[in-house]
């Protein structure tokens, strides 16, 4: 059985490395993108099971990536977890309205993030509803 693929989109290489170590230790295959353009390309070519998305990105921010995702019927059901250093005000509600399954400010506890990933994957696979 193929491993669950998670696309990590963050322009900070140290953040990408840290998330990669943690996610791989939990059995996930990890893909990377460092800006909005490469994130969009990776969504199309790799069709990940879930995306962890920073908001502050070069070449268009995370909201641009979510907008492109929602416009593509083949990709729109890929769950998105926003993980950002941006302020709560404005960004959390806007991200959730744009379709994010969860919103976290950095730094997030590993257990909290891993739980949100499992829940978002269960919802996208039809094993759980968002309100459960």
């Amino acid at each position, binding site marked *: 059985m193929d491993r669950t693929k998670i696309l990590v989109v963050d322009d900070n290489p140290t*953040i990408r490395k840290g*998330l990669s170590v*943690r996610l791989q230790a939990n059995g996930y295959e990890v893909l990377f993108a460092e800006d909005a353009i490469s994130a969009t390309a990776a969504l199309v070519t790799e069709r990940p099971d879930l995306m962890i998305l920073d908001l502050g990105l070069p070449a268009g921010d995370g909201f641009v990536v979510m907008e492109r995702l929602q416009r593509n019927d083949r990709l729109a059901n890929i769950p998105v977890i926003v993980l950002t*250093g*941006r302020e*709560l005000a404005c960004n959390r509600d806007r991200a959730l309205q744009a379709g994010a399954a969860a919103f976290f400010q950095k*730094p997030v506890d590993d257990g909290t993030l891993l739980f949100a990933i499992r829940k978002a994957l269960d919802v996208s696979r039809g094993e759980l509803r968002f309100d459960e």
Partner: protein
Amino acid sequence: MTEPTRRTSELTAYLSHELRNSLACIQQFGNILIDGLAGELSGEQREYVCIMLQNASKIRKVLDSALDGTPDPV
């Protein structure tokens, strides 16, 4: 929005982004070490990394409170 308000808002956004990213890196790799994902630590090494993480946690609480007015994680 007045000029001083705009500049304060930009400074807050900048501080939030830069400090939270740096803090996230410290926490991520500290936890990776504590969990043995990069090899087992000696008791003394573990104690020192725990001290580092506890202090990172204190900084996080200050940041949450100062920048967003939310002392608890979201």
